[in-house]
């Protein structure tokens, strides 16, 4: 029979924390340095790339770059005005289409759809899949149905905008759904219990509560659309146009397209600094958009 003291002693002996043995410590250290190495490699690649671009393009940045039209003959006076205007148009069109469509779809799926019905599950699965479809496929879709086919808009900036909107729509829907889902059910119950209709509850409680998340998602989606090249190439974008795109001409161009055109020019050495300068401008715009997204999230996100 063991006495109380014996039991207590045994318990203390068992609870002593053993010192780590040597091999465990070596393993731990090796794994840690492996992870730091991977991180360093990724950052090194990025720094080299940015440094190279900065080296090539920084000297080219000037007001003329923004005001002059691209030239295939004189790289020294060439700018990217048409491409910049094209990108501004595209962003406007994408935002105009994607915000109402994306938010409305997200509201339907979160607030109205009966998940026991197979068609709602089908829609959900398809939206998840569409978010992962390569952008080239959207280009082909746009060429077949928007530039030609049913819509027949031609190679216009609107056709490009619609194509990019379709491309980022799944992302906007997914992010908006998450933001809507983050509004606790107790808020909906509280509103409905006061005699609010379902629509009043969505419009006055759920949407204001999720607007920061939705806005963040929209900005991130736009920053994806701003860098897309492949779908616009498939649509048949113009090569270094000297006319600005507008709603009533067939000039389809954008910043990444202009960069692409400069880098594949036969006299690539002459045009490379221009491409690098355009990349820098695009990078700064992207950084600003992402910062805005982070700012919106931190400033306006509702903590429940």
């Amino acid at each position, binding site marked *: 029979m063991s006495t109380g003291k014996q039991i207590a002693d045994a318990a203390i002996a068992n609870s002593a924390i053993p010192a780590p043995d040597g091999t465990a410590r070596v393993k731990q250290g090796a794994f840690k340095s492996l992870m730091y190495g991977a991180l360093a490699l990724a950052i090194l690649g990025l720094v080299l790339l940015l440094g190279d671009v900065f080296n090539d393009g920084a000297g080219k940045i000037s007001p003329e770059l923004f005001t002059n039209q691209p030239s295939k003959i004189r790289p020294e006076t060439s700018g990217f005005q048409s491409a910049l205007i094209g990108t501004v148009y595209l962003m406007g069109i994408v935002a105009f289409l994607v915000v109402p469509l994306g938010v409305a779809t997200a509201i339907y799926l979160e607030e109205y759809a*009966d998940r*026991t019905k197979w068609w709602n599950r089908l829609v959900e699965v398809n939206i998840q899949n569409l978010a992962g479809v390569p952008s080239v496929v959207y280009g082909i879709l746009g060429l077949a149905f928007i530039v030609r086919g049913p819509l027949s808009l031609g190679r216009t900036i609107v056709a490009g905008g619609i194509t990019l909107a379709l491309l980022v729509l799944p992302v906007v829907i997914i992010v908006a759904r998450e933001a809507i889902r983050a509004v*606790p059910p*107790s*808020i*909906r*119950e*509280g*509103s*409905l*219990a*006061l*005699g*609010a*209709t379902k629509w*009043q509850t969505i419009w*006055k*409680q759920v949407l*204001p*509560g999720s607007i920061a998340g939705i806005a963040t998602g929209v900005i991130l989606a736009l920053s994806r659309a701003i860098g897309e090249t492949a779908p616009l190439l498939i649509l048949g974008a113009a090569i270094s146009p000297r006319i600005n795109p507008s709603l009533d001409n067939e000039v389809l161009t954008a910043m990444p397209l202009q960069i692409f055109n400069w880098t594949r020019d036969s006299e690539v050495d002459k045009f490379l600094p221009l491409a690098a300068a355009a990349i820098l401008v695009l990078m700064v715009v992207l950084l600003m958009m992402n910062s805005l997204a982070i700012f919106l999230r931190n400033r306006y996100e*509702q*903590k*429940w």
Partner: protein
Amino acid sequence: MSDQAKRTPLMTEPDPAATPGEAAHRHVHEHDAPTSAAGAPGEVARPAQTIFECKGVNVSYSGTLAVEDVDIDLGLNEITAFIGPSGCGKSTFLRVLNRMNDLIPGAKVEGSVVYHGQDLYARNVDPVQVRKRIGMVFQKPNPFPKSIYDNIAFGPRILGMKGDMDEIVENALRGAALWEDVKDRLKTNAFGMSGGQQQRLCIARALATEPDVLLMDEPCSALDPVSTGKIEDLMLELKERLSIVIVTHNMQQAARVSDRTAFFIVDLSAGEGKRIGKLIEFDETQKIFTNPTDERTEQYVTGKFG
């Protein structure tokens, strides 16, 4: 809300069976049974005037019965407490009274729930109209992420109530004994209030739409004793002008505030995994706690099970 507005029927379309005038006059039902039923055993003391008359109410979720065959008449300007062990269906039944169960997919309510002479579950009754008149306070305080003022004003605004909004807000806050605490910070976010204040804000928010019934689903379970005491005092004040139904796990609370108490139980005899809530006994609170008719009620209120 004016008296006229209160009398408007709950229906989306006129029901030939009951004109609005009739409905308004039928809500007071005199019963032959004496209000004090100390006499004959098994005789239940019914409220003299009722606000709800429920007959044979079953609630099921996706075909699984959750509450079975509840017959109960709830008193006008009384506080009725629902007590019973966890899972006995008392909260579920509370949500029958303002059609909150409609919001749960697959939920089905059978039987009749007559309120002011109208069956709440009649085909032509609009649940939104029901909830306008029957307010609800939840277990966890759920203020909206808005200012204190906007929390109160939300209901009156969506219902399009006429009148000075500042006055409506002040009256509601006074009604919930919260005015003195918050009158200098009406524009600050309600999330900054203490739990007890938040719950009183939720009561004030419900009062702002001038309901004539207040359903309270364990309103004090997340609160400290001081806040609980304030809310209990408030309930006793409020019953002068409306009827209150409260679900509570706290038997002392039921004994302190309620006029009548309904004891629910969870019946496991229907088979594996089946939990069916049943109303066992409904009587004056004093009788339930001192001299209940059913043995199970006695065991529960004396702490022998549950």
